[in-house]
């Protein structure tokens, strides 16, 4: 066997081995990354659920009434506050 062939074989073997190990390490590293991204996504999803709940609590009629009455000084609509006018007869509207 020629010297050159032996060296080539050794280099090729070493490179293949290195490639295999590197590929395996990369897969593990990407696995860590993916898992951490999944956990981050889960955290964001959880946070979103809490924020949505907070939004719904802020929209609850009890809170809206407290703000409307307490801070804005509003009062409930009572009879007569809103008067719905009869629509004008079509002929009247047309003539005028």
């Amino acid at each position, binding site marked *: 066997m020629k010297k050159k062939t032996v060296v080539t074989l050794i280099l090729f073997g070493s490179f293949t081995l290195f490639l295999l190990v590197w590929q395996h390490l990369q897969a593990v590293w990407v*696995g860590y990354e993916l*898992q951490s991204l999944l956990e981050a996504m889960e955290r964001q999803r959880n946070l979103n659920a809490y924020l949505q709940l907070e939004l719904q609590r802020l929209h609850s009629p009890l809170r809206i009434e407290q703000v409307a009455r307490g801070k804005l000084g509003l009062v409930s*609509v009572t009879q007569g506050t809103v008067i719905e006018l009869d629509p004008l007869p079509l002929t009247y509207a047309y003539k005028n």
Partner: protein
Amino acid sequence: MDGARLHGLAAAILFSFLVLTLRLLHLQILQHPKLASLTTQQLKRQSELPSQRAAILDRNGHVLARSIPAWSCYAHPEKIRDKKSVAYLLADLLQKDASSILQTLQEKKPFVWIARDVDYPSAERLQKLRIAGIEWMPQVRRVHPNGRLAQNLLGQVGMDGYGLSGVEQRFNKILQGKGGKRKFFLDANGKSIYLEAQEPDPEPPELVLTMDRNIQYTAEKMLQRQLEKFQAAGGEVLIQDPKSGEILAMAHLPSNPLQNPPTQLAYEPGSTFKTITLAAALEERRIGLDDHFFCENGLWAATPSLTLRDPDPHGRLSVADIVGKSSNICMAKIAERLGKEKLYWYVRAFGFGNKTAIPLPGESPGVLRVPSAWSQVSLYTLSFGQEVGVTSIQLLSAYSAIANGGVLLEPQLLRGQADPGGNLPGPLPPRPVRRVLSKKTALEIAKLLEGVVQEGTGTKAQVAGYRVAGKTGTAQKFDSRSNGYSPERFVASFCGFFPVSDPRFTVLVVLDEPQGSIWGSQVAAPLFSEIASYLATSQAIPADREWVSRGQKRASHAAEKVD
């Protein structure tokens, strides 16, 4: 280096590689299944994900109940070295007593619960600390953004995620998701590594009720105010659309998520039941609107064992006045004309003694004995709402039948499920149970009940601008200790509908054991008026053109006399 040495070195390296290759072949190919399975056992983990429970919405899409993630914290005490520091750390973040946590950690058990149902922010802070021996279990917490609103109707969910009562129990199968599993590898340091793609647990579609959150809120608020005013033990307000049977509000106070008295508890209704007797007699033509009855001046010995009394003495009264003044004596005489069998038939036809089929657990059919089991006085007492147990939902449905022209409808509570795009289901068609009355009789009854509100016991139920029909009720409660009716404990009620020209709402108001005044006309009718005014304004109900106020009617009567 000469050639021989070089060849020797190369051979040695090649031999080493050959050995390594053979070993690798042995491990990777021959031993692969065994070793792979051992690795999987050691490193692969699978965690159960809690199932996502669907949200419950009102008819307009407002969230009434929903699930959010939460965590339960547990410990392996033997793995914790400095128990005292850990206890103080946990107590600080979980807002709990440090000594009780320390006591728990000192228990000689392999597993102890530290806290259940911890909210997301606190749990996240604690999880980041990675305390040895402290573990977390994901779970789901049921929350109500509107606080205690409609708790009796919505019900409760247990720690295991199963509905225990109310809508949560009745629709548990629809609400409950399937849950999921998460697979991952753990490295030597306990850090997780991604393993494979997982299908997320599909969130079950939201459940949409017929209930209106704002109407329910207002009903509860007004009921609470009335309970405080009359120091009543409890109360109910039920609101229904008489044309579709859809329930818009079902308030009961004091609220208990494990019980829904409007469908589960039966009580003697008292005079609100007179409407049923009257409807039966009119439908069977045993009485006419022009008939008159003698009310015995308030005292009548109907049988040797039963003497009936009216709160106020009356002489001869027309049918309209009998209802308007709520005479027990004359109502008993009307029942006498009708007879046992016919009265029983109509009471059953109106749905009493049967479940209404409202989709809620534990519905009571009420109490209604067959005529063969009636005593000599039962016909008389039943005519004005004694010796019969009704649930509020039965009474409401019966009045809705009169309001819609004589058809008993199934009360509806569930509209359906929202589609994946979040679109809400529309109104449901009515589910008729049976026709109880002809349209003509239903209109006659509505007219008579309108008279109750205009000039009779129900004047405080009037709503300016709207024709209202309804009937008051004041029922003595049965006292099991004395085996008779209590002279002190009453149920005051008012049931009615409006606008009479085109009924949109049937409203039942019940107050249990009011103090001060006991009369339905004084206690329940004003609350009906308040609620009806709110409904008319908030739902933009056009005013009745034929509406005549009590004062106007008196004035017109006076004018007629002058003419």
